[in-house]
């Protein structure tokens, strides 16, 4: 079981666990170039304009963003925001992202926060810079700032012009970010709100793009890690005699339970890995999969988070005319990045440089420093785009693998490419989650009581621990960090008596982390499906009830538009269809975190009763995320959320025995393929005067409930478990 902080015992046993066996003399490892010392110091704090922006002598503006593009189009959107705010051409923007030496620490790229938070920090800096440039120009041209016009980085008064480059090109602003700096009025924006084409796509479609996996360094070595066959096994010993016969083999590296092979070629590393005979102890610390949710329920709760409390639920449940109870469960999921994690690390003069696809290079830097016991200022992490990660996948662990191995081979550049099974088995998992729901209705069919109990891991610490450090028994700053899993446990509806509580568990079977819409997806699955159960028991139309009980004009407009878009047929569920193949529709709605974007989805499904198979035919979605920066980018994110979550809902589940994860590849952990992808219809509500909210997650949260509700509408059978496999659906229909 994954419990608390990793232990330091072996590390403190002063290196007893350390073995480096070389096939060649260590002299093969020479010095690499000192990449860490090449960049001039520039400020990276959040308070200075120079941390975010620099005007070049050629008039380009370099933007330094701590938020990175995880394949979501953020680079393009951030460039639009800066170009618009600074009145420069889109092409004049150069974006540097996630380099810990030059970019400010704006927090990890997660939680749909890149535009909402990171983008607005940068936009504030741009607005401050614009005002400063106008003041400088006014002084130079001896006019009032208000009389100046700006276009393409040229400030004009009549026919006299001065450019940004002439004013500050190659120099610093040396001013603080003015938190009161005014943004341009929406009517004056020319790039924000338009579907500027993504800057990375032509290169990605032609092989001209450099992904993390493509990074190569002079003299770079290739390594592969040999993982324990049981998750908690100890390495008793190993024999690499046979590996040494692989011509490109260089070294076997061991620290405690961390075992890796280094080779001068990639294929050699793969072959040599297979040739090492490692002797591991047994370990059977995982629960029995068939009883997973019994184990979750039996886990000690160390903290109760009450996320909402209105009225007196216990009293209301007692007096309610109708009373419903239900339990919802949601399987453990893997991130399933199509490209397994990869990193390159090298150490020159005690300074570590790590190229990584990490969504949080700044936090990774500190974690690597702790792991290797070196000062943080001697670590630099440089972001390179990887495959989509959808949360905290294995990128950081590949980085720590590469860093540790490099430290064992004289600092030589080392590339670690995770194999498919490394990613499927060892990436941190979305934790298995359980929710108990209770509801009561009065004699008129009004819901008068709502109670929910969530069983989810506690949060202890700020970082997901590095896998490398766990295996190597290195110092660690990690704990249990599943993400904001209690968000959206509270509901957006006006009900007289509500109580929602999260039981925060002291352990969970797998190292947990956030996966797209952590907690919100599991909670919204239970909330929106259970609401549907209550409404069905009172023969109420699911759309009408929500419209009447959200008391939120933006939510109401959204649902009204969704009803129109999907051709919603106002009636209660189920449809009472007969026949083996039946169709149904289901609705789900969420106000993300109750403070951010609004999104609603209607699913249309077809169910074959005799087989229990679900086919999602169509998904209609309406989203209000405030001011939209790039409409096509938002659509792309929503489409991705809907398809990916359809996959998670219908078929995804981490399987395991008592020792380890057994879903090791795409055959044992299948995801949706083209023939099963639903038709997608998206409508956006743009509100240029309102704050922007992120779009990377919210529309994922509603998909499982919409599908569950549609299956109920079609069959009258309620599916309370993700994934909704044919066996579960068939059993539920049979019970019916």
């Amino acid at each position: 079981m994954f419990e608390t902080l990793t232990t330091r015992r072996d590390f403190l046993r002063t290196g007893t666990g350390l073995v480096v066996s070389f096939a060649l003399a260590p002299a093969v490892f020479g010095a690499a170039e000192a990449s860490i010392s090449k960049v001039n110091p520039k400020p990276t704090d959040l308070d200075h304009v120079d941390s975010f922006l620099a005007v070049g002598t050629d008039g380009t503006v370099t933007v330094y963003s701590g938020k990175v593009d995880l394949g979501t189009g953020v680079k393009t959107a951030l460039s639009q925001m800066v170009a618009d705010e600074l009145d420069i051409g889109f092409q004049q923007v150069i974006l540097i992202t996630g380099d810990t030496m030059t970019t400010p620490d704006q927090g990890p790229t997660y939680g749909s926060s890149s535009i909402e938070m990171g983008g607005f920090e940068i936009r504030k800096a741009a607005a401050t810079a614009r005002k400063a440039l106008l003041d400088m120009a006014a002084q130079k041209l001896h006019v009032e700032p208000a009389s100046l016009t700006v276009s393409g980085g040229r400030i004009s008064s009549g026919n006299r012009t001065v450019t940004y480059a002439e004013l500050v090109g190659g120099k610093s602003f040396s001013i603080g970010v003015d938190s009161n700096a005014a943004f341009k009025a929406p009517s004056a924006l020319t790039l924000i709100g338009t579907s500027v084409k993504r800057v990375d796509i032509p290169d990605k479609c032609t092989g001209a793009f450099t992904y993390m996996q493509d990074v190569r360094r002079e003299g770079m070595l290739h390594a592969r890690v040999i993982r324990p066959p049981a998750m908690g096994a100890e390495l008793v010993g190993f024999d690499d005699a046979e590996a040494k016969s692989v011509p490109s083999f260089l070294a076997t590296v061991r620290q405690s339970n961390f075992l890796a092979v280094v080779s001068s070629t990639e294929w050699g590393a793969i072959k040599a890995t297979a040739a090492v005979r490692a002797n591991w102890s047994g370990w059977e610390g995982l629960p029995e999969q068939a009883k997973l949710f019994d184990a979750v329920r039996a886990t000690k709760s160390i903290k109760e988070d009450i996320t909402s409390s209105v009225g007196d639920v216990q009293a209301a449940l007692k007096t309610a005319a109708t009373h419903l109870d239900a339990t919802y469960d949601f399987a453990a999921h893997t991130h399933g990045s199509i490209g397994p994690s990869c990193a390159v690390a090298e150490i020159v003069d005690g300074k570590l440089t790590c190229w990584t696809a990490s969504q949080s290079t700044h936090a990774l830097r500190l974690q690597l420093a702790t792991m290797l016991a070196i000062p943080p200022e001697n670590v630099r992490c440089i972001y390179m785009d990887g495959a989509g990660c959808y949360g905290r996948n294995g990128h950081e662990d590949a980085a720590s693998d590469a860093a540790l191995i490099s430290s064992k081979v004289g600092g030589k550049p080392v590339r670690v490419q995770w194999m498919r099974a490394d990613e499927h088995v060892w990436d941190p998992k979305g934790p298995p989650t359980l929710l108990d729901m209770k509801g009561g209705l009065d004699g008129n069919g009004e819901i008068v009581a709502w109670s929910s109990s969530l069983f989810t891991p506690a949060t202890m610490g700020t970082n997901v621990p590095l896998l490398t450090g766990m295996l190597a028994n290195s110092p660690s700053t990690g704990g249990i960090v599943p993400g904001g899993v209690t968000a959206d446990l509270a509901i957006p509806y006006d009900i007289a008596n509500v109580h929602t509580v999260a039981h925060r568990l002291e352990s969970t079977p797998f190292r947990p982390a956030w996966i797209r819409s952590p907690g919100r997806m599991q909670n919204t699955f239970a909330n929106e499906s259970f609401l549907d159960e209550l409404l069905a028991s009172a023969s109420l139309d699911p759309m009408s009830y929500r419209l009447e009980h959200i008391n939120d004009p933006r939510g109401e407009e959204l649902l009204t538009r969704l009803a129109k878009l999907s051709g919603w047929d106002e009636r209660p569920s189920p449809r009472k269809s007969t026949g083996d193949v039946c169709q149904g529709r289901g609705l789900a709605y969420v106000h993300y975190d109750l403070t951010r974007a609004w999104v609603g989805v209607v699913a249309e499904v077809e169910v074959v009763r005799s087989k229990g198979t679900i086919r999602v035919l169509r998904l209609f979605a309406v989203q209000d995320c405030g001011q939209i920066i790039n409409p096509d980018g938002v659509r792309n994110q929503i489409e991705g959320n809907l398809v990916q979550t359809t996959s998670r809902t219908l078929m995804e589940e981490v399987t395991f025995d008592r020792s380890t994860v057994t879903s090791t590849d795409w055959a044992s952990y299948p995801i949706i393929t083209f023939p099963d992808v639903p038709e997608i219809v998206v409508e956006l509500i743009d509100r240029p005067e309102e704050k922007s909210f992120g779009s990377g997650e919210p529309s994922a949260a509603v998909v499982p409930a919409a599908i569950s509700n549609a299956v109920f509408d079609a069959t009258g059978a309620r599916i309370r478990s993700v994934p909704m496999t044919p066996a579960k659906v068939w059993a539920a229909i049979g019970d019916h």
Partner: protein
Amino acid sequence: MTHFQLSVNGRQEQVSADDPEMPLLYALRNDLSLHGPRFGCGLGQCGACTVIIDGEAARSCITPISSVGEGKITTLEGLGTPEHPSPVQAAFIEEQAVQCGYCINGMIMQATAFLSKTKNPTEGEIREALASNLCRCGTHVRIVRAVQRAAREI
């Protein structure tokens, strides 16, 4: 060391390998520095590594280098460039049919091989043709639209 003569994107290349079983993918990526073919699974399950050999889509991660012989290999780079993309590449760019893009090499190579044999495909035929190419970002609907656009323009 064995030397292999490969025909890649119309050029004759020589690659040395100490193992004739080494998958072609590693020769293309590491010896020839190509970025198009990508490592996704090494198991023939995802399609990220797809190249075209003599007109047929092939999974380079499970194609031993010694099996290629005189086969003419085309990679994503061999189809076109950002300035002069092939019709399929241009259609993907036009439809913005990319999220992270890690799968896109496979999608474009598979679609190119498919469209060279199938004129005016139906949407169902396109979906079937791409059924063994995985995308985790959920870019499928755009990818299908891009292949439909390419089919019209070829």
